[in-house]
């Protein structure tokens, strides 16, 4: 019934709008740009065609797709055969909560205009497709610290420039 090598891996996560515009794409398996585009196109079409009363899981190619809509954004994960769909829904929810805490009542526009931050937050929560930190607090703390580090470097750079111009 179960193969000897089980497959538990998140292969990718996509965020897209109801018009099918991609807002984030995180790939945990090596694929060419062309393949990624094809998968994205097909999957977005498939998910957007689903009616609201249908369940959050569907079988697509040899993967299981877990998706959930939050306001105007679809969060869509591709997991492997033996993975637990219900916990994947929790992973999606946790990510949304993190975004919400960070941006304060997050909406699609936040993710559009600050897409790089959406990635930074995701990368502090998942690593190689697996959850790396199960405490919401710890993820947010790490992001905060990293942001501070970034600011300090930027500030450092700025002050160096001012000093240089002053002496000229």
């Amino acid at each position, binding site marked *: 019934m179960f193969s000897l090598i089980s497959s538990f891996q998140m292969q990718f996560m996509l965020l897209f709008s109801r018009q099918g515009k991609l807002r984030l794409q995180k790939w945990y398996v090596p694929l060419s740009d062309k393949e990624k585009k094809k998968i994205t196109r097909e999957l977005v079409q498939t998910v957007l065609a689903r009616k609201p009363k249908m369940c959050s899981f569907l079988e697509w190619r040899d993967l299981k797709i877990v998706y959930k809509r939050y306001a105007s954004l679809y969060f869509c994960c591709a997991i492997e055969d033996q993975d637990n769909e219900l916990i994947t829904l929790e992973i999606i929810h946790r990510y949304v909560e993190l975004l919400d805490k960070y941006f304060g009542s997050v909406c699609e526009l936040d993710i559009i205009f600050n897409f*790089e931050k959406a990635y930074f937050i995701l990368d502090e929560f998942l*690593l190689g497709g697996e959850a*790396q930190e*199960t405490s919401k607090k710890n993820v947010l703390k790490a992001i905060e610290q990293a942001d501070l580090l970034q600011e300090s470097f930027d500030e450092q750079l700025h002050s160096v420039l001012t000093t240089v111009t002053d002496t000229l």
Partner: protein
Amino acid sequence: MHHTAMSPSVPLQEMIRAIRSARTQCEERGVIQRECAAIRAQFRQSDNGGRSHNLAKLLYVHMLGYPAHFGQMECVRMIASPRYSEKRVGYLGAMMLLDEKQDASLLITNSIKNDLSHSNQYVQSLALCTLACMGSAEMCRDLAPEIDRLLRASNSYIKKKAALCAVHIVRKVHDLGELFTPAARSLLAEKNHGVLHGAVVLITELCERNQETLERFRKTVPDLVQIMKGLVISGYSPEHDVAGISDPFLQVRILRLLRILGRNNEGASDAMNDLLAQVATNTDSTKTVGNAVLYETVLTVLHIKSESGLRVLAVNILGRFLLNNDRNIRYIAMISLQKIVGTDHNAVQRHRGTIVDCLKDQDASVKRRALDLSLALVSASNVRSMMKELLLFLSSCPPELRAQAASGIFNAAERYAPSQRWHIDTILHVLTTAGGDVRDETVPNLIQLITNASELHCYTVHKLYRALLTDISQQSLVQVACWCIGEYGDLLLRGECQETEPVQVTEDDVLDALETVLQSHMSSPATRGFALTATMKLRTPLSLTANTDRIQSIVSIYGSCIDVELQQRAVEYNALFRKYDHMRAAVLERMPVIEKNSPGHTNGESTGEPIKDIQTLKVKQGEPLLPQQPANQVLTLTQMHVV
């Protein structure tokens, strides 16, 4: 804009605004082209403090679907920068624009190596993340020792990431599993949830890949059980709590590891038995998160060597899932039950009622699963009631499921039919409801079944005649009806029947019915063939003269039919009237009972040769798909169009 911890990148946001304000695809392309030209120019300039904003812009453009390969080298440069802001975007860019299949990805190996031992943990984190996301086999081999070092001697923040990095490495280069095994073992003693989670994922991966490693890690079952107990029983930990469940993510991963360790091993399975029962009983199932843990528990129970009591408990959880308001939970239950319907058949049977109810679920995926499961649950003892439900389902099921439902019903009917009459009735019911969705073999199969039920010939021909009068649109039904009328028409005309109300018809009435089929635009050529042959075969108890005229006139009309097949038949039948009239009665004698697996059973042609020979011929390789026509021309008339 909402508050953010870090100041937004103004240049990036300005560009995004500009792109979004484009009103057409063409306009957008124009904006993008201009922006890319500017970005390119900026890349060529020396350091101007805006490099990270520039690359971020390019990454946005890339996400919209535009080419961005000219940014790859910039990523490589940024990663090597001493500035954190630049590294951060550089690594992000690498993960988005590079993949292991490209040469440029090799160039960042050295930067990653350096950053893995950077004094600042956030820089180390970037390197670990990138390696775990896109590290090629070569990079993995190169950097594995570094990762192993970090697994042993670093803070929790780094250790948890190193563990998942190791997972990626092992997935890419299986042999490297051995390298990480010792460190993985000691990580189980850590208290930090993140590290523990990473450790469990790593150990799972190691055990999956190597049987020896798995056997060594079996000794950790008591430790894992302890950790789980701590999560399930002990106090509330606000940091890891999700709706009353303490760290569900970690719980699920531990349960999964236990599954792998307990599989095929009684000792390990025993050691975890109580814990599993505890989790199964105590986990709150009112929210999805609790059900996620319960689901993993059920999977584990069903795959290890668990006690029968525990198994029943697990199946009952699935049964409860079937009644859950959340359709996701119902879907999960269906899938799981489907997987165990073979091994735990009786346990699943107990939930048959609920499963059958799910045939009426709104969600098509749940319906499909319910169909599969229902068919799997049909048995000799429940076949009558199950078939009622399934036939009901067939009459209103979504079109994409009809073929599957019809074929499933046929199979079940064949296996468990309580009587021949029931069997025939069931098949007729399916043909009436979904005749267009059944496979081609259904017609000869049904005919074979009918010929074998000799006591029911009268009953069957009556039923089919009535069906024909009602509706001639379902081709398979019409074909079988025609064949039966041709074969058993005399029983129809006799005016008596034990099993059902007899009809009072004349030969003309019957010929009328057949002619209607022949002339209807709904009838396919194959169906017309059946009708023509039936007309020909119609035997009457009285002298043949009056009706043979009518039969002959019908037949000769088709002698000039456009359809070649029909024309040929008509011409040959005509010949039977004219030149071979003395043989007509013998040629049109009632068919013998068709054996199962005879050629007539599958493709409608019988050579009249002994069945055994034909079967052995069929089994030989290279056998032509169609049986050969024998030489004797007269016999051709008997062979032809038996069905």
